[in-house]
């Protein structure tokens, strides 16, 4: 048995917390007990539901709002309601779409990748592009997300439909963002009028102004959301996995454990692939 850790680590200033105006806020640590004064360490951590490799349910803003990100989702479980058998040692199929920097996966590529996978009914899906590596995440900072491959809306629709037909529960990917960066970061870090220098995320004044302009925390692009297409059909969407290239087989068992936040909607998560 071989265990492969696919989890994006958490550290202060990590790029995923710095790139978007409100969907993922900065990781901040404060050492309120330290070796020098106290001989031990205790850390107060400010994280976000999307820190690290996140696990995001359709009611992502639970427990404060049970309104799902998209209407009529197949699942409405919160973090504390998901049965363990969906999270522990569940079968997953690896869907391979080797994607270069900035590439947006097309429906044709998605269809071909699904056809080439060993996809069994009920499998979770791990979409592997090869982008997610620890070295890249550590070295590139916010560019890791600006330059990530992503999924075009029509390709996401195709995958979402397949996942519904195959009764799949979890969508996972090693992309930094599921939506194309030009959509997710529209007129923030990409688009017709990106902000320069890039402002800090929420609760910066720029992020607040953006929320005012958009009438709420949305991505602001006129294009539909690829992530939205997927999240309607799954228990949770999971992104920013790393080191998936270490998986040698086309199917693995996955251990997927978000924090056990009572009625929570999203959380940093551990992802371990188990190969026999």
């Amino acid at each position, binding site marked *: 048995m071989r265990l492969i850790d696919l*989890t994006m680590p958490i*550290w202060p200033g990590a790029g995923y917390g710095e790139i978007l105006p409100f969907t993922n806020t900065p990781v901040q640590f404060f050492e309120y*007990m330290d070796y020098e*004064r106290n001989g031990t360490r*205790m850390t*107060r951590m400010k994280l976000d539901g999307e820190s690290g490799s996140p696990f995001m349910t359709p009611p992502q803003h639970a427990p404060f709002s049970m309104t799902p990100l998209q209407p009529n989702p197949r699942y409405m479980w919160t973090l504390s309601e998901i049965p363990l058998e969906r999270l522990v040692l569940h079968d997953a199929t690896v869907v391979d779409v080797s994607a270069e920097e900035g590439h947006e996966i097309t429906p044709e590529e998605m269809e071909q990748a699904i056809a080439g996978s060993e996809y069994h009914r009920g499998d979770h899906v791990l979409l592997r592009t090869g982008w997610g590596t620890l070295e890249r995440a550590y070295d590139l900072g916010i560019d890791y997300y600006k330059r990530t491959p992503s999924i075009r809306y029509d390709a996401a629709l195709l995958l979402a439909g397949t996942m519904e037909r195959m009764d799949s529960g979890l969508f996972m990917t090693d992309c930094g963002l599921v939506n194309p960066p030009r959509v997710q970061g529209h007129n923030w870090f990409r688009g017709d009028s990106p902000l320069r220098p890039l402002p800090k995320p929420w609760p910066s004044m720029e992020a607040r102004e953006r929320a005012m302009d958009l009438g709420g925390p949305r991505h602001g692009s006129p294009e539909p959301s690829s992530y939205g297409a997927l999240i309607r059909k799954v228990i949770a969407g999971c992104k920013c996995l790393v080191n998936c290239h270490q998986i040698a087989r086309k199917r693995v068992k996955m251990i997927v454990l978000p924090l056990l936040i009572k009625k*929570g909607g999203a959380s940093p998560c551990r992802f371990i692939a188990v190969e026999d």
Partner: protein
Amino acid sequence: MPECEGIPVSYFELTLPLDHEWMPDEVFPIAARFYLAPRGHPDKGIVLGSETGTCVTLPAAFREFRGTRRLHEVPAEKLFLRPTVVLDIPKNAREEITEEDVRAAFDQQDPNPGEAVLIRTGWGDRERHKQPGGGYILETPHFSLGAAELLASRMREKDSDLLLADVSVIGWPGKHMIPEWCSLLPRPGPWPSPEAQMYLHLYSGEKVKEDFAVELVFARAGIMTVKRLIHCGAIAVKGIKIIVSPLHIVRGVSSTCRVIAIEEP
């Protein structure tokens, strides 16, 4: 019943839920308040301490061992699907786990080499974590220094470096923190209350060494400890596989974690 490779298995959630309305472990000044803030709030996101709820603590949490392995360096095999022996040491509120208890538990069930050890006192099955007040922390069973020394020594003999327990604290911080903090009435809030900040400002390394003598025994032996497990009573067999899933924190020394037991018939 779920199956793994055709074998039916049972999964048990042993994790204290993170409840944004109230956490039972926010009693001492060393605890950081857990809270969630909704979108639109300046603190949007998750705020928690490194030892909020069920948590794993590495030896590197202490100054003497800060050169040892950190969270992001712990091999997955040490924490995920690790064979584990369950040792029963039933205890009532406020009771100490003694050297004799540890000896008797090992006489009943000798761990296999490399197995993690889960000490089950029954405290985590009494639902005290759901009751108001500080009782979950302040009335917990805990290890005596002698018990810790014997347990650490037995675990080292078995090449075991992971200890789990359904107690709220591993050792009893009775030298300084209990008398000093608990004599403040009404009891102040945890960190970052002004009182907690002042208390920790004066809580020197020497005081920590005395209050955390038991934890230091395990750290000295290179043993990772996991505390605040609940519902261990549901486990029916002595040999299980355990999953300890902390946050993957770069250079972290402790973290809230999720703990799952896997029972294979």
